[in-house]
């Protein structure tokens, strides 16, 4: 069976856990697929992996779907739990998956300290720019102007640039992609898994249910297509003027790439 093929990655899922609970059009399912393909193509067997996640829709990406050891913890604390497990058993390939609210708001302190420690682990932030599970409130990555359940007139607070945040904190592999860019994302995930330090990937993953409807972003397919025009590869971004980059998301391997 070809590693990374549909039939091959099916074996990495717990059948009893299917179907996933994600809404139609949610980007988290595409991200789960990308993670499974990267793992299937990696040199490590699934038994070596430990998936740690917090609370939120993104926390359900690995738990209970992936047929490996999974640790589904309290909201925002996944990195702390992952640190303990990894220190005790350095053989474990530790993958932390969380939403933007989980990793960057309630878990923000753990994020910067885990990056600073540069302990070997792969951290994937499924950024849908909202608290999906609790009904679409504003998060620290919601764009200025976006309407959410708690910013009905539009968000006035500036969002975090998560990649620059973890880079400044000391992460040694940092990348950003979207669920539209699956090939690039899978390649980046493979490199993150092989990286001998703290590897962080921000993955833009649309939430049609909570964010799309409020902001008239159209159908789930429209939201995916919008990611294509919104994202600018790093090489192209370098040629662009700052005003041209307003509202764009720079994608690529931002730190530690090839």
């Amino acid at each position, binding site marked *: 069976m070809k590693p990374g093929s549909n039939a091959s990655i099916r074996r990495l899922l717990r059948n009893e856990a299917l179907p996933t609970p994600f809404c139609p059009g949610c980007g988290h399912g595409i991200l789960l697929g990308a993670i499974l393909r990267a793992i299937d193509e990696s040199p490590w067997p699934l038994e070596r992996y430990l998936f740690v996640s917090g609370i939120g829709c993104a926390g359900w990406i690995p*738990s*209970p779907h992936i047929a490996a050891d999974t*640790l589904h*913890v309290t909201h925002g604390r996944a990195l*702390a*739990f992952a640190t303990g*497990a990894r*220190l*005790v058993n350095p053989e474990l390939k530790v993958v932390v998956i969380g939403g933007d609210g989980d990793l960057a708001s309630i878990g923000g302190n753990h994020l910067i300290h885990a990056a600073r420690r540069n302990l070997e682990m792969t951290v994937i932030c499924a950024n849908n720019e909202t608290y999906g599970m609790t009904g679409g409130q504003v998060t620290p990555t919601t764009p200025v102007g976006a309407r959410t359940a708690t910013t009905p007139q539009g968000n006035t607070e500036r969002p975090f640039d998560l990649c620059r945040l973890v880079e400044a904190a000391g992460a040694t592999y940092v990348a950003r992609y979207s669920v539209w860019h699956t090939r690039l994302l899978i390649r980046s995930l493979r490199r993150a898994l092989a990286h001998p330090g703290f590897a962080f990937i921000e993955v833009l993953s649309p939430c049609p249910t909570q964010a799309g409807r409020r902001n008239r972003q159209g159908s789930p397919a429209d939201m995916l297509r919008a990611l294509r025009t919104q994202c600018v590869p790093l090489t192209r971004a370098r040629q662009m003027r700052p005003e041209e980059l307003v509202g764009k998301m720079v994608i690529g391997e931002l730190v530690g790439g090839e």
Partner: protein
Amino acid sequence: MARLGTQRRVANMSATPEIISLSSVLPPGPAFLQGDEACAEGAIAAGCTFYAGYPITPASEIMEHICRRFAELPGRVFIQMEDEIASIGSCIGASWAGALAMTATSGPGFTLMLENLGYALITETPLVIVDVQRAGPSTGQATRPAQGDVMQARFGAHGDYELIALAPWSVQEMYSETIRAFSLAERFRVPVILLADEAVGHLRESLMIEPTVRVYRRRRLGGRPPFGDAEVPPMPAFGQGEKLLVTGSTHDAWGFRRTSSASAQATLVERLVRKVQAHEDEICRTVAYHCEEGPLDVLLIAYGFTARSALRAVAMARGRGRRVGLLRLATLWPFPSREVARHTAGARRVIVAEMNRGQVLREVQRIVPAAEGYQRTDGEIIEPDELLAVIEERERR
């Protein structure tokens, strides 16, 4: 001397709880230590392989001592985390990776740990949390003793559960009760809280190091439901190939989330409560002083450092011909109801002495409604003279 580092690698793959003997790490015989240091040494002797913490008075000495000692011993991991939330979180991750884990703090940090204490309870994660109590609430008085966290330990996490809390009264017990805390945590798969206080933590006195340490060892048997079936199910470790599903959401015996099943919620809570309640006699340790001969005029009940003053007051009162005894509670949770009922039965008066506003008194009053309290919450210890005066004054009444 057989070192723990090698012994612990022999995983217990059997289905039944098993007690093992470990050689002590400190040379056997008399030693002279500070309470906090003795706690750290007790953890080392019990086979603690992972420690995470955050500095706080009056518990920092535990972390500093562990840090120094772990560096000399094989197979032990120390880390200072960014806060107490992360400290207990990393301990739980470490415990599931197969380690015996401990963290130590004081009131303000213990409050931060309550969120993940609840997680440890619902996931049945063995873990030792030391709370060297200081005067509160909030920052309060960092260097002054108190016993104000008794109810926080019992009910601080939300929801329904049972846990274990021990109250050491001496440097000897900071060593031996820390060992017992690890053993109970492994035996019942439950977080165990060592409720020390500043006075015991900073006390320096001699203690005896026994040549061997006997502790329960975790069952790591795979292929069985890790969250049900048995009263205390086996707990395999990550990396063992068990595809463990560990979640803080309500789950079934295999760890599958069951967030809207009434029966899964009821079954889980019932077992979490029963596995501790059913073993009150095994878990609870009380020590009675001068309670044997005939009905007492006054029975003092005390725990932690306060019990030292109480014992002294009892000796003084008996010297004056009064029939007075002491019941010392070395276990606070589950509450040793049976022992308290047995010893209070014949006593004319029952007085509970503690450095809080009656947290254990109320528990005793459930058994003896007329029990009286003697309390101090000014950050000072209760002195023997005060208790003697209380004994005599109440006797005259």
